[in-house]
């Protein structure tokens, strides 16, 4: 743990926590608002992903203190998560090809 982090740990972090808490409420409302707006799918997808990642980032950085940890730990946790993109990229095309095979039989629906 760096010297800064240690000093900050002893500090009263209540102000920081309450600020983050406030923004989490704002962003949650933002997500709900995007849903109510009935935006085009592409725009809604971008907004959903961006706001969800912002919320996750706030929780991880401040509530889970990742911002105050050593870079060794931060990188060890964050870099493997890149594989989640590979996971999605691996299975979504499969679903898409199933849809293409099914589509001719969907006429009645």
């Amino acid at each position, binding site marked *: 743990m760096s010297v800064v*982090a240690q000093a900050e740990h002893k500090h009263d972090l209540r102000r920081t*926590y309450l600020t983050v808490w406030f923004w989490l409420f704002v962003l949650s409302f933002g997500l709900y608002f995007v*849903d109510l707006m009935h935006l085009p799918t592409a725009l809604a997808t971008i907004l959903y992903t961006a706001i969800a990642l912002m919320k996750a980032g706030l929780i*991880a950085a*401040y509530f889970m203190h990742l911002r105050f940890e050593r870079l060794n*730990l931060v990188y060890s*946790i964050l870099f493997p*998560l890149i*594989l989640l993109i590979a996971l999605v990229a691996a299975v979504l095309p499969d679903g898409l090809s199933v849809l293409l095979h099914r589509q001719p039989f969907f006429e009645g629906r």
Partner: protein
Amino acid sequence: MHSETQAAPLEEVLKSDWGGGKSPFGVSWGKLMMWLFILSDAFTFGGLLAGYGALRVTVGKWPDTNEIFAISLGGTKVPLLLIAIMTFILVSSSGWMALAVNAAYQRDRRNTVKYLLLVILFGLTFLSCQAYEWSKLIFHEGVRPWRVPSHPPFNGIVQFGACFFTLTGFHGLHVLSGVIYLSVIAARVAKGVYDRRGSYEAVEIAGLYWHFVDLVWVFIFTFFYLF
């Protein structure tokens, strides 16, 4: 270590951190293990969400979640009202958890227990909302993981039932485990176990788990309920 103004060559840095006799991550083993568990759990939920995405793509048309999870309020149907309330409950519980960890930093036993009890209360409220939602879908709408009604808004899309119960079930199980975990920690704080040990870190580690459960809900809320 951090005072050098000039950047050291990479080999030097690696040697100094990983050469032995040092703590490369700068955290206790308990905290490191919780982080590694969280990383593996992130892949569990990542896999479930990716699978849900793939299944949803195969059917082309998905049931309208706005309609399924709407609640009547004074005659008008408000879309996703219960889910929005559940989200706010979980975000609130995360805030109480942060305050509990903060009180633990100050070694303030009374406030730590107080905030932990609030987290547990909010967690139980969340679970009650989920129990209500599940029983409504199972007993009133007749939705099962393997069968859904053929009328709108479900239109017989069976993948909806499978994804709904798997995703929210896994998450709910995590919330339930968290409530039990935090109850144990709260009891130990109240008994003064951590005062005797001289470290309140157990509260912080439990907090990591609870915040992660909230973090996962962000994605389930966004990609299952809203999307």
